[in-house]
């Protein structure tokens, strides 16, 4: 089955993919996704910047009800899913959490992964970024 990343501009093109943001050459502020100007200072150019692939959960919640469009549910239909902000040191990134709810807590070490967001009309699996438990990953 073919797969595709939901938006190439979020990733670095490597396998496995890493998230790519941008960093200001002036004030060193890191942003995600990439943008061409710095939200902090009016100086400096923005250059592509690969984000760290591990960090820890900074905050989390669960989406219980099915969101309205343009949300696209997975092939099995909407199931409650966890998401949160992950502290990567230089930036906090909002992401789906591919972790059983009972294990989710603020401070939990996590590592970048991908999950299926939905299937395209032709059956292509559309992947988006997520963070899974770092401990589970090492097992």
């Amino acid at each position: 089955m073919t797969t595709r990343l939901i938006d190439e501009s979020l990733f670095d093109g490597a396998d496995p993919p890493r998230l790519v943001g941008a960093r200001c050459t002036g004030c060193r502020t890191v942003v995600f996704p990439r943008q061409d100007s710095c939200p902090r200072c009016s100086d400096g150019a923005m250059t592509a910047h690969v984000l760290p692939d591990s960090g820890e959960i900074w905050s989390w919640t669960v989406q219980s009800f099915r969101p309205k469009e343009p949300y696209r549910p997975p092939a099995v239909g909407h199931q409650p899913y966890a998401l949160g902000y992950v502290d990567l040191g230089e930036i906090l990134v909002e992401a789906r959490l591919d972790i059983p709810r009972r294990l989710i807590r603020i401070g939990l070490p996590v590592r970048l992964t991908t999950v299926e967001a939905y299937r395209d009309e032709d059956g292509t699996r559309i992947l988006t970024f997520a963070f899974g438990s770092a401990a589970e990953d090492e097992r």
Partner: protein
Amino acid sequence: MSRPEEIYVVGCGMHPFGRDESVSGMDMAERAIREALADAGVAWADIGYAAGGSDVSGKPDTLVGRLGLTGVPFVNVQNGCATGASTVLAVANALRAGEASLGLAVGFDKHERGAFHVSAARYGLGDWYAETGMMLTTQFFALKTQRYLHEYAIGERALAMVAARAFRNGSRHPLAWRRKELTEEEILGSAEVSPPLTQYMFCSPGQGAAALVLARGDRAFDLCERPVKLASLAFRTRRFGSFEVFAPWLPPGPHRSPSVDAAEAVFRGAGLRPSDVQVAQLQDTDSGSELIHLAETGLCGHGEQPDLLASGATDPTGRIPVNTDGGCLAGGEPVGASGLRQFHEVVRQLQGRAPGEQVPGGPRVGFTHVYGAPGISACAVLTV
């Protein structure tokens, strides 16, 4: 004696909030305006400057077709949750500049049921953000609340206390939507939306309208027995480092909200302190937001909320009554109208004629606060 450039509220009107399929947003706005004009004892033709706001229910300036084609300048405002405050700001500044001596501010909305429908492109975000199910205001409030409870070691019961008080106040208010009291257990046990927030800890998009007649100081006391002075009004957008709705990323903390900036500015402008406030309105899109806003506006310290709530200090009979009309939780959230609902309630409290439970002892200092996407806040201090 009042000075001419001081601005006063001399009349207010409000259409009940809730759900009523028989009236449109414009219908409600017209009724609120006519009530405000009658309250001030003036006619539409006396209004020299007007501003109106609505998020989804039409162009406010078309109301002149119903009220009278007097040629009055009428500014339309669309400013999210700060829409109401922005209409007051526009009118107050015009009166202060001498453009007119009497002005009118109106806000109204009528939303479809369920969570707000949002477009990624409208917020400058890629489609992936909404398609993957991260573009929901409810998630933001849950994520901010989750982190806040963790940082200040606050339990989830505090969230239930906020909602229980809102519904208790709403049950005694003739203009509120949710008029049934709920226990803390019922609130904690209601359907989970996004933890730590449950169904009854969230307000619902709804409908409603509210209007104010404002006057310059040299007219106010002729028109109104007890005009309420707009002592200060401050509106701020976010600065770098704030934690806002629809944010795919955040910088490392500390995160400073525009509510902090707006509150500091408004108290400085009024020459008063948060501890002087005797009746307050705080944006309570959800229980967590009110809990956080209590501290961000300076009404209490971070982490003090559970004790404050448990002691009854935020009840109408307490030291610092909050959302005496039930706020957004009991009133629902018609985006364009909520800010002016806050003014309506505080003005009526300061005049000693609250529609619901009156704060005892003749309060003299009132406070309003709104907060919304994409990181805006407006605060006002009202005095008698």
